[in-house]
C-alpha cells in the first residue's frame, strides 16, 4: 500500500505520504485551534489522529519534547483505549512515544517501572487469547504441521524443536495427525524452548497427557533459556529426523546483534541520550495556540538514533543471527518452518519503524475490531498486554532491549539462504487445510496468499504474517 517504507533510505519521497499528510494544513476557517470534538466524525477523528501521531513521532525523533507534549495533549482528547480501532491504536502508540521520551531520563524511567508486577499467568492468558481471537496462530500451526507431516512421511523417529513453545494446541494437533498416519505414528520427541518454566511445565503436562491418550511414544524435553543462548549442540541426536518450528520468535535473536553493533559505535548511543536531554533543556514553555501560530512542525529530521551505525543493508550482517542460523543448519534439519510478522519493524530510525508499525498494528487492531466487540475485556487485554507491549518495544526501546525486530520475508529469505538453507515450497495441501480452518471456524475477512512457495496470512489484502519452510542444504 502506498506509504509503506519499502525502500528505506533511498527514496524518501515514498515514505512521505503519511508525513505529508501530517504536515498539511487543515481545513480553513476561523476559530479556535482545537478541533471541535463533538462535531468530528469518526473518520475525521481518525485522520486527525494519524496526523497527530505522525507529527508527534517526528517531534520525538527530533527530540523536541515540549512540542511533542503539545501533540500528546491533543491526541489525548481524541484517543481512547475503548474507542474504535484508530483510537485504540493512537492510545497505545502515544503510550509508546511517551515511554520513549521518558527514556531520555533513564533513572526516571526506571523508577516509574520499578514496581510493575508482571504476572506470568497474565502473559500466558493473553497469548492464549490472541490464539483464540485471531486465526493467525492457528493457521500458522496448521500449515507448520502439514509441512512436518509431509516431510516426515515414512520416518520412524521424529524430533521437533519448538523455538517458542507456549501453545500446546499446536502439538496436540500434530499428535492427532500423526496418529492417523497410515504407517502409524513415529516415536516423537519435542524440545520446547521458552524463558519461563511455568509455560513449559504446562506444555509438558498437556502434551504427555495427549500422547498417552493416543498411544504415541512421546517425550517432551523442556529447555528454559533465552533463545540466543540456546545450546543447539546439546539437542543433537543421531538417527532422528529433525524439524524445527519457529512461530514469531526468530526475530528476537536480532536484538542481540544490536548490542555488538552498539558496542562498536558507542558514540551513537551516547549521542542519542544526551541530545534528547539537551533539547529538553532548551525548550521553552508555550501554549498550543502560541506554538501553532509561530512554529512549524519539523519534518523528518535526522533523528539522533539515525546516526547509529545501522544502515538498511547492515541487517544482513548480523553476526549473532548468522551464527544462530548456522548452528541450526548444523543440526541438518529435514524441515524448518518459520512464521514471522510480515512488516519491517527493524529500521534504524524511529520514523521508519513507526510508519510501518502504524500500518501493521492498524491491521491487527482492525482484525480485533471486526471480530470482537468493543466492550470485551479480553480484547483490551490482548491489545494492551500483547500488541501494546510489542508497540512499546518497537518504538520506545533501542538496542538489546528492542526484541520485536520484525522483518519482511525477503530479508529472512536472504538470511536463511546465506546460512545454507534451501527453500521448501509449502504444499497446496497446507493451503487447503488453512482455508478449511478459516471456513470452519467462521473467521471472516482473513485471507491466505501464496507466493513462491511461501504463505502469507493476510487481513483483507494486507499480508501480516509470513510462513516459509526450509531444509538443510549442503
Amino acid at each position, binding site marked *: 500500500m*502506498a506509504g509503506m517504507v519499502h525502500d528505506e533510505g533511498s527514496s524518501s519521497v515514498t515514505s512521505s505520504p503519511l508525513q505529508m499528510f501530517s504536515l498539511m494544513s487543515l481545513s480553513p476557517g476561523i476559530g479556535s485551534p482545537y478541533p471541535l470534538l463533538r462535531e468530528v466524525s469518526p473518520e475525521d477523528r481518525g485522520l486527525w489522529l494519524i496526523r497527530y501521531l505522525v507529527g508527534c513521532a517526528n517531534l520525538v525523533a527530533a527530540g523536541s519534547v515540549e512540542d511533542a507534549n503539545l501533540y500528546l495533549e491533543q491526541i489525548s482528547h481524541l484517543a481512547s483505549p475503548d474507542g474504535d480501532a484508530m483510537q485504540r491504536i493512537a492510545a497505545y502508540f502515544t503510550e509508546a512515544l511517551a515511554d520513549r521520551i521518558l527514556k531520555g531520563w533513564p533513572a526516571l524511567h526506571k523508577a516509574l517501572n520499578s514496581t510493575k508486577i508482571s504476572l506470568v499467568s497474565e502473559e500466558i492468558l493473553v497469548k492464549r487469547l490472541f490464539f483464540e481471537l485471531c486465526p493467525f496462530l492457528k493457521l500458522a500451526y496448521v500449515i507448520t504441521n502439514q509441512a512436518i507431516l509431509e516431510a516426515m512421511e515414512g520416518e520412524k523417529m521424529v524430533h521437533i524443536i519448538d523455538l517458542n513453545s507456549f501453545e500446546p*494446541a499446536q502439538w496436540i494437533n500434530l499428535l492427532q495427525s500423526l496418529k492417523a498416519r497410515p504407517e502409524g505414528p513415529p516415536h516423537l520427541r519435542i524440545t520446547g524452548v521458552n524463558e519461563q518454566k511455568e509455560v513449559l511445565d504446562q506444555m509438558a503436562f498437556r502434551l504427555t497427557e495427549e500422547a498417552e491418550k493416543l498411544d504415541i511414544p512421546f517425550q517432551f524435553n523442556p529447555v528454559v533459556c533465552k533463545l540466543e543462548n540456546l545450546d543447539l549442540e546439546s539437542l543433537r541426536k543421531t538417527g532422528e529426523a529433525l524439524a524445527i518450528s519457529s512461530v514469531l520468535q526468530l526475530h528476537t535473536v536480532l536484538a542481540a546483534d544490536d548490542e555488538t553493533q552498539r558496542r562498536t559505535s558507542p558514540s551513537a548511543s551516547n549521542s542519542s541520550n544526551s541530545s534528547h536531554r539537551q533539547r529538553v533543556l532548551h525548550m521553552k514553555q508555550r501554549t498550543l495556540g502560541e506554538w501553532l501560530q509561530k512554529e512549524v512542525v519539523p519534518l523528518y529530521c535526522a533523528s539522533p538514533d539515525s546516526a547509529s551505525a545501522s544502515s538498511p543493508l547492515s541487517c544482513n550482517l548480523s553476526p549473532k543471527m548468522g551464527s544462530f542460523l548456522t548452528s541450526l543448519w548444523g543440526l541438518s534439519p529435514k524441515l524448518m518452518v518459520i512464521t514471522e510478522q510480515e512488516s519491517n519493524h527493524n529500521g534504524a530510525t524511529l520514523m521508519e519503524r513507526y510508519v510501518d508499525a502504524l500500518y501493521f498494528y492498524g491491521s491487527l487492531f482492525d482484525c480485533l475490531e471486526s471480530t470482537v466487540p468493543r466492550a470485551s475485556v479480553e480484547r483490551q487485554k490482548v491489545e494492551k498486554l500483547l500488541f501494546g507491549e510489542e508497540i512499546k518495544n518497537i518504538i520506545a526501546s533501542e538496542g538489546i532491549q528492542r526484541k520485536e525486530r520484525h522483518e519482511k520475508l525477503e530479508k529472512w529469505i536472504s538470511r536463511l539462504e546465506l546460512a545454507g538453507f534451501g527453500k521448501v515450497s509449502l504444499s497446496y495441501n497446507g493451503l487447503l487445510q488453512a482455508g478449511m480452518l478459516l471456513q470452519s471456524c467462521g473467521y471472516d475477512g482473513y485471507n491466505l496468499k501464496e507466493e513462491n512457495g511461501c504463505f502469507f496470512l493476510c487481513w483483507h489484502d494486507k499480508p501480516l504474517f509470513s510462513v516459509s519452510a526450509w531444509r538443510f542444504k549442503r
Partner: protein
Amino acid sequence: MVDMPNPSSQEVSSRDVAAPPAKKRRNLPGMPDPGAEVIALSPKTLLATNRFVCEICSKGFQRDQNLQLHRRGHNLPWRLRQRDGNAEPPRKKVYVCPEPACVHHSPARALGDLTGIKKHFCRKHGEKKWKCERCAKKYAVQSDWKAHVRTCGTREYKCDCGMLFSRRDSFVTHRAFCDALAEESSRDHNNNSAQDEQKARSSEAAAASSPPPPPLTPSTTVVSPVLSLQRSDLPENAIELVPSAPASSSLAATITAAAAAAAAAAAAATAGLDNSTVTGGNTAFTGIFPASVAPLLQASPSSLSNVVCTAAPPSPSTAEPASLSLFLSSTASSLFSRPDQNTQHLYALPLPPAPAMSATALLQKAAQIGAAATSASLLRGLGLAISSPPAASSHEATLVTAGDGSNLWSSQGKVESSSEAAGLGLGLPSQSSLFGNRPMTVDFLRLGMGPAGGHTGGLSALLTSIDGGLSMDRRFSGGVPGVLYGGAGGRGRGDDIGRGSWEEFPESKPGGPKGPPHHL
C-alpha cells in the same frame, strides 16, 4: 508439494538385478538389464519406417516379426528359412535415444523396446504432426493421437461457472478457486454423488502430485490501486479508496472459495465412504480431521470441538472470572474450535459501517492524501493556479487571521496570493471538502509566518528568514520544497532575488519548516 530430496533414491543408477527370475520379469523403463546389448541407432534409422527388408523381394517392414511372416510366403528351402545361426539365448537388446541431451541417451538408462524408443524419440524430440479436432491438442505419435481422440469429449466436467474441462484434475483445481463457487459456499455441503467423492479423492491425489499455484495476484498488484490514485486531478478521494476493498474482496473470495470447495469435497468424500476408507484413503485430510468432517456437515460447532479437542480443563493456574470462561471453554486447547459461538451471537457485531472507518483504511487514506498533496503541489505549486476559488479564498482567510501581523502573503497581490495561498497551505481543494470547512484552523506549517521576516517584504526576506532558522537536516526531498514554495516559486519567476534563493534553496538545504525551538 514439499520439495524434498528423497533420500532413498538420490542418484540415478541402474538397479542391480538379483538372481535370474523364474518368470520373465520386466525391468522398469529406463533401468535396463546390465547384461544387455546396447544398440544405438541414428535418428534416420530409428524413424525409418521399413527397417527390416526382405532379401528376396526387397520389401520393407517395420517389425522383424512381420518380415518373418512375409518370408514364409516365399516358400524358401527350410535351411534358409531359419535365420543365421542360433544365438541361444539371444542377447537382450536395449536401445538408447540418439538425442544427446536426452536422459535416455546414456546406456544406463536405455529403453528395452525398439518400438518404445521410437515412440519416445518422436514424442520428446519429434514434431507433433497429429492434431485432435476437438481440443486442438497435438501429438507426435499416431497411436497417442488415436488414443486421445477416443476419449476426447467423451467425458466432460463442467464447473458451475460454466467452464468445461476434459481433465479431472484441472477441473478440481479450478473449482477450488472458482469465483462462482464463492457465492455458493454457504450452501449444500452434501454433494453425495459418487462423482464428487471420486473427484475429492483424485483431487487429493492430484494435489499431492501436482500442486498448481493458486491464481492469486502477487502482492505488487495490491499496491497498484493505491499508487494509481496519485492523480493530479483529485477526485473525491473518500470514495476512491473503497474500490480497493471490493477488488481485494474478490481475492478473499477466491481463498474462501477454495476452502469452501475443499471442505465440500472432503465432506462429501467422507460422508459417502465408510469409516474404514476414511482413514485408509485421504491421510492428508483426515489426519487433521479424524472424524470431524461429518460434524462439519451438520455445522454444529460443539460436536466439532468435542470430537477434535480433548476435554481439557481450563488452565489451572489462574482463577478466571466468569466472563473468561466463555472464551476459555473446554475447547481451549484445540486448534479447530470456534471462537465461542455464544458470545458471537450475543454481540453480533457487524463489520465497521464504512470502510473508511477501519484503521487500515484511514491510514491508506491519509497516505493517499499526503501523496496526492505531494504530486499536486509538485505539478501545480509552481505558480499554476489551483482551480478552486472558494478554497483559495478560505485559505487566504486562514493566513490572514492566523497571522500575527507579519503576513507577507497578504501584502502581495491578491490574485497571486490566492493561488499561492492554496499552494502554500497545501490547500488541496479536496481537502477543504474533506474536512467540510469546519472552523478549525490548525496551520501546522505556518509557512508565511516568519517573524523575523517581518515587514521587510519580498520573497527573499521570507526565504532567508526561514533559511536562517533551519538547522536540522532533513532527509525529506522532492515533495516538500515544491509544496512549500509552490507559490514562492511561481512568484520567484518574476523576481530575480527570489528566484535565485528559491533555486538554490532545495539543493543546499532541502529546506522547509523548522522546528519550534528555532523560532524563539
